[in-house]
């Protein structure tokens, strides 16, 4: 019965998770639904607390990154991969918080619980990414999902908002139930809840059909969070329904942790033995192909830019899953690099809406007309981010794809690589449409009139985040070595035990 207090090393593992969670618990005390008469400094305080918590968490993680220790507490293990993911989540959350200050002020809807839920979600994600124990994994999944369900519907003045939340909830709950069923089956057949132990444990029936079903259901849960086809349909509705920063956060962080969890669960092709490995690879292949095809095609015909970005995020899931198909350490490293750039790109892209002051349901291409020239800096950032999303060199987005395609080709999946580049081509079509709207089309007269009448948009924080995104995207194009060698490479090496 070692129920004593955690040791200092154990605290080190807990702190990054506890900070956001505690902040999340505290914030509602100050600002639970008291938006009407609340003082501005209280609002500012709440945001400051949130940022402080994230900052502290970041500091801890960064500090851990410098040391060689990988602290753990019970089922929690902050290895390099977890540290990478933690930083990834914290940065995404911080950017989202910064953007949400502007966005919610534009919407006139500043609520403390939004930030609180966001922070809970951050904690959940960290838990999710730092464990191999399926029980904790499931709890982490729920801890970050349930706040997100609520966050999606947080703008309750809008009817589409609650509709989106509800859709997310129902599909998410079904997926979670499948995931849970998978966990139960795996547990039942192996007697352990630790997935990394499971595949190495003697007597594990790796080829048993029931076991395979368990793995399959587990995959369903992950793929749902990754929003890979055919488990993707919630994505566009939910992103459109969410506030812009939340949509960005969801698109980045949810997908990121789910990909990391997939990397953890399926590190390489041989991890699950000679029978299951190729089969899982086959599933990945099919999913990747379907995702690339469906997501890109659908994105092409959207009229809402935000919805397009949602589909684009689905298609990026496709590229990431391609990395799993290759399954080499290089590919997994590439995936992490891709994720880092993807964070910058998507937080930037969703941040654009806030930066341009597009509130409410103004998220179509028509609403974007001519904005690139009106805000030149944002325009340039938008162009950089969008071209990076499409994978045009020399921006960061290209290198992510480059690393994944390189490994794909090296492992003989030339067809998939070709499909991947064709998908990129199609994706260029819809990113160009965004750019066309921003730069190549003059605003309509109604928009001009509206722009002169409307108050000046205050979105310096959001613009800052977009700028950060753009800078990261460019940096990713020119300093890829630092990113790759500094973080991604080590994380994968640590995971695969290659160090």
């Amino acid at each position, binding site marked *: 019965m070692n129920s004593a207090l955690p040791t200092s090393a154990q605290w080190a593992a807990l702190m990054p998770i506890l900070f956001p969670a505690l902040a999340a618990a505290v914030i509602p005390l100050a600002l639970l639904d008291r938006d009407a008469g609340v003082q501005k400094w209280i609002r500012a305080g709440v945001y400051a607390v949130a940022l402080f918590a994230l900052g502290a968490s970041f500091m801890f993680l960064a500090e851990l990154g410098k040391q060689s220790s990988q602290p753990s507490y019970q*089922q929690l293990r902050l290895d390099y991969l977890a540290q990478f993911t933690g930083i990834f989540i914290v940065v995404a959350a911080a950017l989202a918080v910064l953007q949400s200050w502007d966005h919610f002020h534009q919407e006139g809807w500043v609520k403390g619980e939004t930030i609180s839920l966001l922070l809970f979600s951050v*904690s959940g994600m960290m838990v999710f990414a730092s464990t191999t124990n399926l029980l904790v994994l499931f709890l982490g999944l729920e801890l970050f999902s349930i706040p997100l369900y609520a966050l999606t519907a947080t703008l309750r003045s809008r009817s589409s908002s609650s509709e989106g939340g509800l859709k997310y909830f129902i599909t998410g709950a079904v997926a979670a139930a499948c995931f849970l069923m998978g966990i139960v089956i795996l547990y039942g057949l192996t007697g352990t809840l630790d997935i990394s132990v499971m595949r190495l444990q003697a007597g594990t029936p790796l080829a*048993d059909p*029931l076991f395979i079903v368990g793995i399959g259901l587990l995959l369903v849960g992950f793929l749902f969070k990754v929003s890979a086809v055919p488990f993707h349909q919630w994505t566009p509705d939910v992103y459109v329904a969410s506030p812009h920063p939340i949509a960005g956060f969801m698109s980045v962080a949810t997908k990121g942790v789910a990909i990391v969890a997939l990397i953890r669960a399926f590190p390489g092709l041989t991890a699950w033995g000679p029978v299951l490995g190729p089969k899982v690879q086959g599933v990945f292949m099919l999913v990747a192909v379907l995702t690339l095809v469906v997501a890109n095609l659908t994105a092409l015909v959207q009229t809402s830019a935000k919805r397009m970005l949602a589909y684009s995020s689905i298609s990026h899931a496709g590229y990431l899953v391609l990395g799993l198909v290759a399954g080499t350490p290089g590919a997994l490293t590439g995936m992490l690099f891709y994720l880092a750039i993807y964070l910058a790109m998507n937080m930037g892209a969703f941040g654009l809406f806030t930066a341009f002051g597009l509130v409410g349901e103004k998220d179509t291409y028509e609403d974007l007309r001519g904005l690139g020239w009106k805000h030149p800096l944002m325009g340039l950032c938008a162009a950089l981010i969008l071209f990076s999303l499409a994978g045009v060199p020399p921006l960061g987005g290209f290198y992510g794809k480059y690393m994944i395609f390189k490994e794909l080709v090296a492992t003989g999946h030339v067809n998939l690589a070709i499909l991947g580049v064709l998908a990129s081509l199609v994706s260029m079509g819809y990113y160009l449409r965004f750019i066309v709207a921003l730069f190549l089309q003059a605003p309509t007269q109604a928009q001009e009139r509206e722009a002169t009448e409307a108050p000046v948009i205050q979105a310096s924080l959001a613009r800052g985040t977009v700028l950060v995104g753009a800078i990261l995207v460019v940096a990713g194009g020119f300093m890829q070595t630092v990113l790759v060698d500094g973080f991604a490479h080590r994380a994968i090496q640590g995971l695969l035990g290659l160090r």
Partner: protein
Amino acid sequence: MFLTFAILALAGALALLLQKNAIEAGLCMALSFLGVSGLFVLLGNPVAAALQIIVYAGAILILVLFVIMLLNSHEEEPAEVSRPIQRWGSVALVAVLGLGAFRLLNGSPALAELAAKPVTGASTNLHSLGDMLFSQHLLGFEVAGFLLLAAMIGAVALVKKNL
């Protein structure tokens, strides 16, 4: 006994599926939960059986019924468009999955091996459960606590009256 409880659980669930009235469906669900809790007893797990009754049938279900009353939507609203593809596709899908599950249970050697083992161990008691919960699963417990708090905040955030 197993058969009785199993049928109770399944029949309750099936009735829920086919029931038009939401309140009656809720009651059918309660029936199903009772069956499940009976199964738990058979599995030598009275703690779980009790929790099933208390939490599920007692708390969650009552919550659902509350909401049904609150929204005053007892009967299913008439469909605007009949969607045969959705309906029959779903039926087919569930049937296929059911068939698959059936075959799976008969076709899994590992499961057969496990089932062939004698059932050992005493039935679960609260004491050992608590021990376990607060030692090895303290982390999970904390996370679950946060989860409940988050859900509460979320629920509050979502249903406040003023828009």
